C-alpha cells in the first residue's frame, strides 16, 4: 500500500467518524434546543388557558390552527400528571394544499408533534388539557442542517483528498528522487548520487545517510578491486616461477611414463591457474573501464579470423561449423571484442559433444553463437554469475561473466536461449 493511500485511508476514516459523531451531537443539541423552544410555546399556551379560565370561568373555545391543537377532556380530579410528551399531530389538509387532498383519500396526515398534558379546574369540573404542536418545521430545520452538514463533510473530504494528494506529492518528492537515485546506483559506476536540495530535515538526513552509504560502498568496492588486482599481480610471479621451473625440469630428460603424466598434469594445473588469474584481472579492468581504447572493427573479418584460429580444435572434436556472416561494423575495443568472440566460441566448443554442431551467424542486429551439447536448458540467471560452472567444465567459470561485462561495456546485450537442440548466445547490438 502506498503511503499516500494509507494516509488517505486513515484520514478518511477518522474524518468520517469524527464528523459523524459531531453530526450526532449537533443533531441532539439542536433537537434538544428546538424541543425546549416548543415546550416554552406549549407553556405559554397553557398559561393563556389558565388566564382565560381565571378570567372567564369557563373553557376557551377550542380552535385549530395550522400547527396547534388543543383538546379538553373530562377527567377524574387529580388523575392527570403534568408532562411533556412526544406525540402525533394529525394535520388536516388545507384548502390551499388542494393537490394533496386530491392525491390522498384521507383528510390529513400524521406528523410528529410535541404535546403538553396538563389539567385545569373550572368551577368544580376537572379537565385534562392536551396541547399538541406540530414539529414539522423543527424537523425540516433539522433535516436542512443535516443535509448541510453532510454536504460540508463531503466537501471537506474532497478538499482534504485533493490537498493531501498535492501536498504529499510535493512533500515526498525528495523521497522519490532519492529512491530514483538509489535505483540508478551502480557500485561499479563512477557516477555519484547528487546532493538533494530540500528544506525538510528528515529528507536531508536521509539524503546524507544515503550519500554516506553510497560512498562507503564504493570505497569498499574499490578497495576490494584494488585488492583483487594486487592479489592477481602478486600471484603472477610465483606462477611464473613454477612455470619456468617446470620448463627447466623437463629439460633434465629420462622421465618415466608416470613422471611425464604427473608433469603434464602440473602443466595443465599451472596454466589453468594462470588463466583464472588473467580472467580475474581482465574482469577488474573491464569493470574499471580501463580498456577504453575503441576503433572501428569489421566484425565479420574478426569472426572469420577467430573461426580460422579455432579450426584445428573444431577438427579435433569433429565439430561441424556453420557460419553465416554478414558485414557488420562496430565501434569497440579490438582486444575486448576478441576476448568476447573467443569466449563465446570456446564455450561452444568446450560444452559440445564429439561430432556436434556449432552455428555462428552475424547480421546487422546480432551475433549468434549456437552449439549442441549434452546439457538441458541452462539457467540464464546463473550462467552469467562469477564462478558458475557446469560440472566437469575445465573453464575458469569467468568466461561468460567477462563476456557479459564486455557487452555491457559496449552497450550491447548478451542473452541466452535454448532453441530446439541449440544452446544459443545472442549478442544484440
Amino acid at each position, binding site marked *: 500500500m502506498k503511503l499516500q493511500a494509507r494516509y488517505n485511508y486513515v484520514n478518511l476514516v477518522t474524518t468520517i467518524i469524527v464528523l459523524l459523531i459531531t453530526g450526532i451531537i449537533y443533531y441532539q443539541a439542536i433537537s434538544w434546543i428546538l424541543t425546549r423552544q416548543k415546550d416554552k410555546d406549549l407553556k405559554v399556551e397553557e398559561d393563556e388557558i389558565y388566564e382565560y379560565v381565571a378570567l372567564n370561568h369557563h373553557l376557551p373555545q377550542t380552535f385549530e390552527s395550522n400547527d396547534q391543537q388543543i383538546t379538553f377532556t373530562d377527567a377524574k380530579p387529580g388523575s392527570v400528571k403534568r408532562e411533556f410528551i412526544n406525540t402525533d399531530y394529525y394535520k388536516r389538509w388545507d384548502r390551499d394544499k388542494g393537490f394533496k387532498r386530491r392525491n390522498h383519500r384521507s383528510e390529513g396526515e400524521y406528523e410528529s408533534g410535541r404535546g403538553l398534558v396538563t389539567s385545569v379546574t373550572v368551577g368544580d369540573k376537572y379537565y385534562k388539557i392536551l396541547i399538541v404542536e406540530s414539529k414539522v418545521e423543527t424537523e425540516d430545520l433539522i433535516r436542512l442542517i443535516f443535509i448541510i452538514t453532510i454536504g460540508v463533510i463531503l466537501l471537506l473530504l474532497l478538499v482534504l483528498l485533493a490537498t493531501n494528494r498535492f501536498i504529499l506529492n510535493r512533500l515526498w518528492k525528495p523521497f522519490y528522487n532519492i529512491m530514483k537515485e538509489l535505483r540508478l546506483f551502480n557500485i561499479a559506476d563512477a557516477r555519484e548520487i547528487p546532493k538533494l536540495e530540500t528544506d525538510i530535515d528528515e529528507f536531508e538526513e536521509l539524503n546524507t545517510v544515503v550519500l554516506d552509504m553510497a560512498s562507503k560502498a564504493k570505497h569498499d568496492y574499490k578497495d576490494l578491486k584494488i585488492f583483487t588486482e594486487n592479489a592477481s*599481480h602478486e600471484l*603472477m*610471479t610465483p*606462477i*611464473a*616461477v*613454477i*612455470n*619456468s*621451473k*617446470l*620448463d*627447466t625440469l*623437463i*629439460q633434465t*630428460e629420462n*622421465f618415466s*611414463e608416470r*613422471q*611425464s*603424466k604427473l*608433469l*603434464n598434469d602440473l*602443466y*595443465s594445473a*599451472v*596454466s*589453468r591457474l*594462470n*588463466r583464472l588469474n*588473467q580472467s580475474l*584481472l581482465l574482469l577488474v*579492468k573491464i569493470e574499471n573501464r*580501463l*580498456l577504453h*581504447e575503441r576503433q572501428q572493427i569489421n566484425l565479420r573479418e574478426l569472426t572469420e579470423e*577467430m573461426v580460422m*584460429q*579455432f579450426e*584445428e*580444435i573444431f*577438427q*579435433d572434436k569433429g565439430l561441424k561449423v556453420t557460419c553465416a556472416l554478414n558485414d557488420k561494423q562496430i565501434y569497440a575495443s579490438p*582486444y575486448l571484442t576478441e576476448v568476447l568472440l*573467443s569466449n563465446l*566460441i*570456446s*564455450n561452444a*566448443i*568446450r560444452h559440445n559433444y564429439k561430432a556436434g554442431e556449432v552455428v555462428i551467424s552475424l547480421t546487422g542486429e546480432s551475433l549468434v553463437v549456437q552449439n549442441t551439447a549434452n546439457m538441458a536448458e541452462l539457467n540464464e540467471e546463473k550462467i552469467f554469475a562469477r564462478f558458475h560452472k557446469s560440472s566437469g567444465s*575445465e*573453464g*575458469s567459470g569467468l568466461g561468460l561473466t567477462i563476456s557479459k561485462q564486455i557487452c555491457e561495456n559496449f552497450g550491447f546485450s548478451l542473452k541466452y536461449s535454448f532453441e530446439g537442440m541449440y544452446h544459443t548466445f545472442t549478442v544484440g547490438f
Partner: protein
Amino acid sequence: MKILIIEDEEGLRESIEEYFSEDGNICETAANYPAALSKISVYRYDCILLDITLPGGSGMDILKNLKANNHPDGVLILSAKNSLDDRLDGLNLGADDYLVKPFHLSELKARVSAIIRRKTFNGSNMLLFNELTIDLLAKEVKVGQSPVKLTRKEYALLLYFIANKGKVVSKNAIAEHLWGDGIDMANNFDFIYSHIKNLRKKLMEAGCNDYIQAAYGMGYKFTEQ
C-alpha cells in the same frame, strides 16, 4: 649471444639463466636497479630481458637510459602487468618486444631469438639450420633447393622449434604459442600431434633429416641427433 637478465625474482632469474646458458650463450644477471644500471653502462648485450618492477627503480628508466645513450641492445620487457598502456609505453620507448608473466621459457627463447635475428642479420632475412633455409620475409622454407609448402601454423611451429633447438618444448607451450589464450577449451593437445606429424612428413619428403622427437609424452624436441 650475450644476454642480460634483469629480474628481481630469484627463481625466475635462475631458470631463465639456465635455459639460455646451455646453448653456449653468455648470460649475465642483475637483481636490482643499481646493478642493472651499472651493467648496461659498461657492457653491451645482444638482448636485455627487462623486468619492469625492480627493487630500487623502474625498468622503464633503464630502457630510457639505454635509448638516451643510443645503445643498440635489443630489449624484451618482462612484465606482470598485462596492460595495454604499459605495453604501448614500453614499445614506444623503444623496447623490441613485451612478454607478460607467466611465460614459457621456450616462448621467451623464441622471442629473444627473433629480436637477435632482427638485430644481427640486419636486413638479411635468411635463417639457416643445416639443410634448412628459411626466408623470414617471404615466409618460405627450403630443404636444400627444394621448397616445402607449409601452412601458417606449421611454419610458426618450425620457427619455434628452431629457436628452441635442443630443448624439450612442452605441448602447453606449443599450443599457447600457436593458438594463443583461446587454447584452454581443448581437453588435450592431441591435435598438436597431427600438426607435428604433418610438418615432419613434409620436411622429410623434401629430403630433410628427422629432427623432431617426441619427448616422453610431454612435448617435443628439435635436435640434430
